[in-house]
């Protein structure tokens, strides 16, 4: 008999689904474990999306709270992480669109101001590297951050999931409610924009930049 994708069989294979099923069944230690297991990925992804540490933590926290609140409705379908990042995607997109609608003073302004949160963390993260190297890296990171911020929200989500969660197009499509074909086109535009924004920074170590003359010739097949 062919193996069907019943929830029990999927759960047996995916430890994350097993864990979530325990959460669904009100096993509180399972939720503690779930937070412990996914907090690093979630905070990192949210930070890449919104670019602000506190907002990223707030959003990641909200994702976990929604997981907990909706635990009874959980039915194992695909990968658990896809479900988790679907929630994350919705919250992040809302936050980013909200920000666009009602521009606020960037929170970073407060991060080093009076009673601002954890001003030393940014420095602490790279304290092991030599200072010059650090400086160069920090500047580079700033430029890359700006390039990422210039992408529209959906492009940014797709790029971040693709790059930092190593998600394939099908999973990204599921998370974002798109077809894989739409994801392909979204990622292509996003990568193209990044290439334009960062082209001055990509030949830093090896060969000199290629002449621009024929770079923009018609590449259509």
């Amino acid at each position, binding site marked *: 008999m062919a193996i069907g994708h019943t929830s029990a069989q999927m759960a047996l294979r995916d430890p994350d689904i097993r864990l979530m099923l325990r959460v669904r069944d009100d096993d*509180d230690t399972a*939720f*503690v474990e779930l*937070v*412990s297991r996914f907090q*690093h990925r979630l*905070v*990192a992804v949210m930070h*890449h999306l919104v670019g602000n540490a*506190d*907002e990223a*933590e707030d959003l*990641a*926290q909200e994702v976990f*709270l*929604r997981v*907990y609140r909706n635990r009874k*409705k*959980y*039915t194992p*379908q695909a990968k658990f992480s896809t479900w988790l990042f*679907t*929630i994350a*995607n*919705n919250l992040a997109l809302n936050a980013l669109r*909200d920000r666009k609608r009602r*521009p*606020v*003073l960037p*929170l970073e302004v407060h991060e080093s*101001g*009076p*009673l601002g*949160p954890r*001003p*030393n963390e940014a420095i602490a*993260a790279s304290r092991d590297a030599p200072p010059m190297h650090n400086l160069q890296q920090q500047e*580079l990171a700033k430029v*890359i951050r700006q390039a990422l911020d210039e992408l529209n929200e*959906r492009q940014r989500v797709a790029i971040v999931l693709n*790059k*930092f969660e190593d998600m*394939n*197009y099908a999973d990204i499509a599921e998370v974002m*409610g798109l077809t894989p074909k739409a994801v392909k*086109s*979204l*990622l*292509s*535009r996003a*990568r*193209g924009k*990044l*290439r334009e924004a*960062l*082209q001055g920074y*990509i030949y830093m170590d090896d060969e000199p930049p290629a002449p621009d003359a*024929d*770079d923009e010739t018609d*590449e259509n097949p």
Partner: protein
Amino acid sequence: MAELPQPISDDDSNLPTDPFEAELVAYLDGELDDAAARRVEARLATDPAAQRKATALKKTFDLLDFLPKREPSPTFATRTLDRLPAMVQSPSAQSHGSQIGSGSSNVVSGTLAATDAMALNPPIRSGHWLAKVLLAALLFAIGGYAASALVGPQLLTAPNRDSTADELSISDHRVVENLHLYAAVDNLEFVRALDTPEFFAVHADLPSDPQLRPPPEPRTPFGPTFNKQAEAFKSLPAARQQAIRELDRQLFAEEPGTRDRLFQVLEGYAVWLDRLNETNRKLVLAADSPRRRLDEVRSVRNEQWVDSLPPAWREELRKLPAAERQERILRWRKDEARLHEEWAVFRSHAPDIAANRAPWPFESENARQSVIEFMRAIYRTDDEKKCRFSDADRLRYTSNLAQANEWNGWAWYAYGKTAFDLNRKYELLPESADGKLVTSYAQLGKAEKMFEKGRGRTATLPHVGKWPEFALAVHNYIATDKSDKVPLAKLGPARPEEFKEPLRSFVVKELLPALSPTDRLSLEAALGKWPDYSRQVVSLARRYDLVAPGLMLPGSPKRWESLYVFGPRIKP
């Protein structure tokens, strides 16, 4: 499914996509089927522009690796779990919560609870003390300079949440009530730093005048004061709100005695700030980090302290060169702190001292011997060569012990204080079950070569042959070393199964079952990390008032602390 993907805007779908670029990106991502991949490869083989584009696409994508990866803050998991009140709440936090819910203002009820504990409970007379404190603190929090420094600019910031999300939740009521105390505080570490003799620690030898104690005040959670503070709180940025919530949560997770003491410290700080002149207050409030703020507080308090000296002393200071002046101030303040401490001990134990009674745990011969035996076995106090103490510390220890044995009675206090201080000063870390102690370079594996010369050698050489000093010196050096990491041999046990008995059983059978889910999580996070795991075991054992065998003095850790930390505040 609970969460459905939201409808998407087509803000970018109308833009034309370069079909080859889309194929190229998909090819680089390994998303093409074989036939399509072969088509792209064929084009790449003949088209230099396409090759350059492929390289550029790949390199820009690789550049994203330079973005720093943000790790969750250490309290992230705890904060998240704490937002699920029905699930994870430490028992102590719950009990405080209910106490708060039924009492008057929590500062007041807290202070009264502490007063009860001290069995100093004369009828409280009504007075204006609290009213004045509250007025001052409120002015500080929502009016005057502080308003513009703390609340004001943030009021000007557009809220970054929906207005519905800004509605005050019930769980924030306590936070709002205490906003006047929290408003100029960074975090719990900052409060703890304030709770030192140098800053606002409440001296145990202060007279306990009931008139100085705040009178009970009816709790008005929805009065105008509350509403003003609620508005101020809601106007703060989300991150600052969260920081204040976290501070409140941590304060209320403290033992009642500690919590009440910290609240007294907060009150002292708030009133002090309120009374400062404009310039000094600005200096304190405008500091851009907790450390700088403490530096400013210290500097202003030093000035105030000097101003309070007798004229002749002030004159003496005035004549000194700046560096020497600072040194003299430090010395005088140290002397003052020591006198305070001695005086505090004397006042708290006057009846015992007068009757020459031995303090806890030295009342019985058995308990006495168990402490002496612990110190002997663990620190080799009976062996001049093998003893872990410095010569001066060993001398202090042996002479206190000799004196206690000779004089008995209250003389055991000095011995107990010495044993307690030395147990804190000379950190104990458990030995490995296999009996191997890392005390020499040869045991460091490949990392041995890092210590052949230079700073690594200097930092570790004096500790060769000593456990755990040598391993700790190696660990500390490697943690600060900037060169490439070399695989290091294991320095010590970092899991319960690696501990010797009876410590192993203690962790598995006593400590772990007692821990709240969040504490268990924090202990699990340290699994496999040396010396973090062992330190965490000791720290949690202290918090849960358990004795980790071989690492902690026999007898309740909380009792040891209440009696022997900075002079006793509360009699056991």
